[in-house]
């Protein structure tokens, strides 16, 4: 359940943005969930829903968009995506990446040249795509 910590981060950031822009209420929040981090969505949405209670985000529409991880090898230039981590990695490896997505460099290799020197160009983790604020 470190999903709670990620949810806290999202909500704190959204409320900061609202305050900075002088808004009163957040009506919509669009989140992108990068699947490299294999977030437990039950735990995450539970946390989000608990944490917004009584805040200026209470009642906001929250949309989740999922993104498959896409990698680009810096050694050979190859670009690839992973449909499902389960087939490639064991449980401990997936858990390590769950906490620190950069540890994918320890466990994932470029399928073409074997290098761990790649960029995660999409689907790393959670980020906020946009926020709709009521003045």
């Amino acid at each position, binding site marked *: *359940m*470190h999903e*709670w*910590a*990620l949810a*806290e*981060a*999202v909500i*704190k*950031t*959204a409320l*900061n*943005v609202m305050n900075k822009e002088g808004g009163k209420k957040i009506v919509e929040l669009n989140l992108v969930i990068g699947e490299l981090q294999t977030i437990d969505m039950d735990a995450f949405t539970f946390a989000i829903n608990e944490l917004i209670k009584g805040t200026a985000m209470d009642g906001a529409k929250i949309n989740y968009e999922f993104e498959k991880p896409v990698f680009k090898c810096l050694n050979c230039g190859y670009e690839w995506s992973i449909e499902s981590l389960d087939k490639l990695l064991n449980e401990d490896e997936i*858990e*390590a990446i769950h*906490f*620190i*997505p*950069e*540890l994918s*460099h*320890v466990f994932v290799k470029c399928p073409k040249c074997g290098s*761990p*020197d790649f960029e995660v160009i999409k689907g*790393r*983790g*959670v*980020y*906020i*795509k946009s926020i709709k604020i009521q003045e």
Partner: protein
Amino acid sequence: MDPRLAIISERLSRVKRVIAVASGKGGVGKSVISTGLALILALKKKYKCGLLDLDFHGPSCHIILGVDKLDIVEEKGIIPPVINGIRFMSIIQFAEDKPVALRGRDISNAIIELLAITRWGDLDYLIIDMPPGMGDEALDTIRLMRNKEFLVITTPSKLSIGVVEKLISFLRSVNADIIGIIENMALSETSIVKEFSSRIGVRYLGKINYDPGLERCLGSVDCLMSTKFIENLQEILENI
């Protein structure tokens, strides 16, 4: 928008002092000193103390503490496991003994993630074992942590002092607090570090002699606590 940056100050809000043990130079004793400091503060002074090993390429604190595996405890985030009274975080908790070859961008991302999800709770001290260099780890420590202070380590060698002078000049350019300089691994009598400190106007905190008995105590805290090394370090601690 990255949601992680905003939460970091909250995660560190109940940490009274953040001390980054740094040098610029490698192999001067940052890891033994930061681990030793955390042990003295926790075991002898009974402070609430955390230790964060930020050297992802060359993590060493766990070897000094004699730990080779750390369990991950989750509770609305990650709760640092307590090792010899110290709340300890290291990349080995996640990567175990595997090599972690990361570019700076990934190191920075991993540090941000770690700081965003770790619940240190109430701490009197958080000691950070810094890697050598003035790269992403140093820049992110400066950028992301409010109350940080730098404790600078050097040996009496020209090569170490050359690099440390650059680190100090950099830290000053970003207005970072510098506690002072510790001289480590003094093998012969020289005053080169003392003179250097007074020339650049940074406090000279004291000297730790080269201790031939340190090596065999790495990995055993009881043995470590009885070394001359810890004795020297504890004297210096009175100045910090």
